[in-house]
C-alpha cells in the first residue's frame, strides 16, 4: 500500500535524469530523499507532482496506478509539491497565493472572506499571522518559503513533497516545519523530504532513499546509518573525514593585495568591508539569501560603483567590463542563466572572454578544453551536448584561461557530480596558489571545509542577515561552527556545542 514506484525513467535528449527508480513508502511515513546534485531527486519530485512526464515505469498509490497529466490532476489526487524555486506570485497577496490552487467559492463567485479565514488559519499554525494582507514581493526569503509551505498544507495533501525549502529557514521556522510534519504523519500523510541538510533529515525523517546518477540505490531506516555511511553511499566512494577540521594554520602572514573598504549589501542595506590576501581561498557560508550573492556581485560591479584598492592602486568598478579589465572573474552555479551560451559551440563558449573581451589571441580551443579536463568530441559541438559537470568546466575554463587575480564564485559546483566537483576544487586551489585569490559561496558547508583546507591561508566568512556573523580560520573551520554562525540566535538543534564566533574583519 502507500506510494510505490517501479522502473521509473526520464531522459532529456542524451541526458538521463532518472533511471529505473524504485521506491516504496508506507502511509504516515516520512521519507528522506538524499542525493548529490544531479542525482535526479528534483526530477523525481516533479514527475510525482505532474510537472514532468515520465518516459517509462509506473507509479501506484494505494494500489491504484497514477499518472498525472498536469499539476492540476496531481492536486486533484491530493499530491502536493513545494518548489525549490518557489511557486508564489510576487504581485499577489499572501492570502491569494495560499488559496490560489483552490479558491473558496460562494456559488461561482470568489468568497474573499473565507479565503482570508483559510489563509489566516494556515498562517496561525506557523505563527505568521502578521503576514496577512502583504504582497509576496514584500516578504523576506524565509517568510516566502513558509508561505510556500502554507500553500501546500492548505491543499490537504495525502502525499506531500518538500523540495529543499529549509536552506533559507531560520531556526524557529525549522522547528515549526518539524511540528507540521509530525502532524501530517499522524494523519497518515506520506511526506517526501528532499534536502541535503543532514541534521534536519535525522530529526524529521523515518527512512531515507539514496539517489545517485538518477538511480535509487537503496532505502534504509534513518537511524540505522551514520552520516558518513550515508554520504559514502551518496557519493560512491568511502568518505573519510569529509567533515574534518580545518588544517593547522601556519604562521604565514596574509599578503593583502585587495582592499574593499565599503560594500553595500543590497536588500539588507548593511555595509561590509573586505581584505583579500594572495593565495587565499575565502569561503562564504550561511543560510541561503542572507547577502552572500549580493556581496560577491557587488564586488563585480553589479550594484553600482565600488571603490577598491588593488595592488596599491585605487580603482573603481561599476560594471562587469571594468571588473574583467581589472582581472576579476565571476562563475555562477546557475549555468543556464549566467554561464553557458546554449546554442553556441564549445569553442565559442570557452573563448568568450579571452577573445572577445580581452582581445587576446587565444590558444586553440582544443588545447583549452583539454587543459581543463573537459570530456568532449570536437570543439564544434554545441555545449548542450555535454553533461552538466563538463559544461561547468567549460565555463570555468573560460575564466581561468584569462588568469584572473580574483575569482568570484557563487555556488559554482551546484548540480555537478562529485568527480567534476573535485576537479574544480583543484583548479581553484591551483589558481590561488599561483598568487591569486578565490572568493567562493557555497551552501554545502562540507565543501567549504574541504576547499579551504587545500591552501595555506584561508578563511570562512559566515553571513547572517546581510552582516558577517563570524570569520573562521584554521582549525575553527568546521561544519558545526559554520552551522552555528549561520543561525546565531538560540540553542543548536540537537545538542551541538556552541562555537566560537569571534569577529575579525
Amino acid at each position, binding site marked *: 500500500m502507500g506510494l510505490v514506484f517501479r522502473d521509473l525513467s526520464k531522459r532529456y535528449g542524451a541526458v538521463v535524469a532518472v533511471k529505473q527508480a524504485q521506491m516504496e513508502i508506507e502511509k504516515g511515513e516520512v521519507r528522506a530523499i538524499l542525493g548529490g546534485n544531479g542525482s535526479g531527486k528534483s526530477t523525481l519530485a516533479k514527475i510525482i*507532482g505532474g*510537472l514532468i512526464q515520465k518516459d517509462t515505469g509506473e507509479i501506484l498509490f494505494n494500489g491504484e496506478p497514477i499518472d498525472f497529466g*498536469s*499539476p*492540476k490532476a496531481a*492536486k486533484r489526487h491530493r499530491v502536493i*509539491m513545494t*518548489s525549490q524555486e*518557489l*511557486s*508564489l*506570485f*510576487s*504581485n*499577489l497577496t499572501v492570502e*491569494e497565493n495560499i488559496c*490560489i*490552487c483552490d*479558491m473558496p*467559492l460562494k456559488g*461561482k*463567485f*470568489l468568497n474573499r472572506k473565507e479565503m482570508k479565514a483559510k489563509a489566516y488559519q494556515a498562517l496561525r499554525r506557523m505563527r505568521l499571522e502578521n503576514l496577512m494582507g502583504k504582497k509576496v514581493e514584500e516578504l523576506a526569503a524565509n517568510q516566502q518559503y513558509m508561505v510556500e509551505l502554507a500553500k501546500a498544507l492548505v491543499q490537504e495533501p495525502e502525499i506531500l513533497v518538500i523540495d529543499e525549502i529549509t536552506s533559507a529557514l531560520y531556526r524557529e521556522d525549522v522547528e515549526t516545519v518539524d511540528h507540521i510534519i509530525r502532524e501530517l504523519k499522524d494523519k497518515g500523510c506520506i511526506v517526501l523530504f528532499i534536502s541535503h541538510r543532514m541534521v534536519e533529515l535525522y530529526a524529521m525523517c523515518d527512512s531515507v532513499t539514496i539517489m545517485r546518477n538518477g538511480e535509487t540505490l537503496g532505502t534504509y531506516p534513518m537511524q540505522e546509518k551514520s552520516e558518513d555511511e550515508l554520504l559514502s553511499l551518496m557519493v560512491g566512494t568511502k568518505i573519510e573525514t569529509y567533515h574534518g577540521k580545518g588544517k593547522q594554520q601556519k604562521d604565514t602572514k596574509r599578503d593583502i593585495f585587495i582592499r574593499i573598504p565599503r560594500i553595500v549589501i543590497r536588500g539588507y542595506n548593511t555595509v561590509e568591508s573586505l581584505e583579500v590576501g594572495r593565495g587565499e581561498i575565502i569561503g562564504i557560508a550561511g543560510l541561503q539569501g542572507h547577502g552572500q550573492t549580493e556581496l560577491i556581485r557587488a564586488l563585480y560591479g553589479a550594484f553600482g560603483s565600488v571603490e577598491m584598492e588593488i595592488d596599491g592602486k585605487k580603482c573603481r568598478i561599476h560594471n562587469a567590463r571594468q571588473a574583467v579589465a581589472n582581472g576579476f572573474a565571476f562563475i555562477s552555479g546557475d549555468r543556464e542563466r549566467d554561464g553557458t551560451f546554449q546554442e553556441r559551440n564549445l569553442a565559442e563558449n570557452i573563448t568568450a572572454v579571452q577573445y572577445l573581451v580581452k582581445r587576446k589571441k587565444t590558444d586553440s580551443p582544443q588545447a583549452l578544453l583539454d587543459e581543463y579536463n573537459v570530456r568532449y568530441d570536437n570543439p564544434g559541438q554545441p555545449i548542450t551536448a555535454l553533461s552538466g559537470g563538463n559544461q561547468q568546466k567549460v565555463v570555468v575554463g573560460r575564466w581561468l584561461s584569462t588568469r584572473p587575480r580574483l575569482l568570484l564564485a557563487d555556488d559554482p559546483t551546484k548540480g555537478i557530480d562529485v568527480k567534476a566537483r573535485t576537479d574544480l576544487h583543484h583548479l581553484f586551489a591551483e589558481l590561488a596558489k599561483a598568487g591569486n585569490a578565490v572568493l567562493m559561496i557555497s551552501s554545502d558547508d562540507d565543501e567549504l571545509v574541504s576547499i579551504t583546507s587545500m591552501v595555506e591561508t584561508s578563511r570562512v566568512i559566515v553571513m547572517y542577515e546581510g552582516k558577517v556573523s563570524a570569520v573562521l580560520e584554521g582549525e575553527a573551520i568546521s561544519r558545526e561552527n559554520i552551522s552555528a554562525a549561520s543561525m546565531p540566535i538560540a540553542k543548536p538543534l540537537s545538542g551541538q556545542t556552541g562555537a566560537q564566533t569571534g569577529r575579525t574583519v
Partner: protein
Amino acid sequence: MNKVKSIMSWNAFPSLLLFLVFLGINGFITGGLSLSFFKSFTATNAAAVCVAIGVTATILVAGTDISLGSIVSLVNVVIVTLCQKGYAVLAAVLIALGCALLCGMINGFIIGIMRVNPLLTTFATSTAFAGIALWILPYPGGSIDFSFGDWYGSSLFGMIPMPIVMIGILLLIWGIVRNVPAGTHIYALGRDIKKAYASGINVTGLRFFVHTFAGLAAGIAGICISANTCAGSPTVGSSMSMNSIAAAVIGGVSLNGGTGGISGGIFGAAFLSILISIVVSANLSSVVQSLIQGLILLVGVVFSIIAADKELKQKIKHLLKARGGMI
C-alpha cells in the same frame, strides 16, 4: 495620510489626474464644459475606451494584442456592407459582433492552444483582418440608416447615454471575471506563466478567454464607431491598436504583465482622447496632427515606463543631480 498615500500609489492615479487636468484645460480653451460637450465626447471616444479595456486584459496576461484596431475596422465594414445589402441594422450589428468574437477566438486559438508568441500572432492576424476589411470594402463609403445614429445618441432609461452603456457591458463582464477565481488567476498568469501552470491554473483556457474578450471589446468599439459616423471606412480602426496600448501604459498597466488594471486603461484612453481633441481643435493641418499624435504616444509611453521603473528613476535623478552640480 495613509489613505492619501495609497491612492497616490494606485497604478491608474497618474492617468486619472492627467485626464482631469486636461479636461479642465480643454474646458478653459473652449470656454466651458457643457453637457453637450460630454455627450459628444463620450460618443466619439467610447470606441477608444472599449478597445483600451480589451487590450488591457491581454496585456495583463503578458499577451499584448495588436490586432484590435483591425477588428474594429472589420466590424465597421461588415455593418455597412450588410446594411447596404438590405439587412436590418440589428441583424447587421449582431453578425458583425459575431465576426469580432470569431476574430478574438482565432487569436485565442493561435496564442493559447498553438502557443505562438502573442505579439507576432496578433501582428499577423492584424494584417489578415485588415485585409478582409479592405477586401470587403476597398474604399470608404456606404452609409447606415440614421436610426442607428439616433439610437446611439439616445440614453438608456432616459439617463445613461448609450456610449456609456456600451462601455458598461464590458465593465460588467470584467467585473464578473474579477470576482471569480479566474480574475486572480489572470494576474498570476501575467506574472509568471510557469508558476501559474504549476499552481494548477488553466493557462490555455485563460489565454483563449482573454483574447476572445478583447475581440468582443473591439466588436463593441466597432459598433460605437459605426453608430457615431453612420459610414464605412476600411481603415477606421488602424490607429486604435497602438493608441490603446499607449493608453494602457499611461494608465499604469505594465507591458510585462501582472500589474495594473482596467481602470488604468480607461483613464489612459480618456486622457489620450482629450489630448487629441485639444490638438484637433487647435486647427492645425492634418499633417501636423499626425506628427503630434505620434509624438504624444511616444512621450506618454516613455514617461509612464520611467515612472513605473524605480531603478530608472534613480538613475535619472542621479544624472540630473550631477548636471545640476556642474552648472
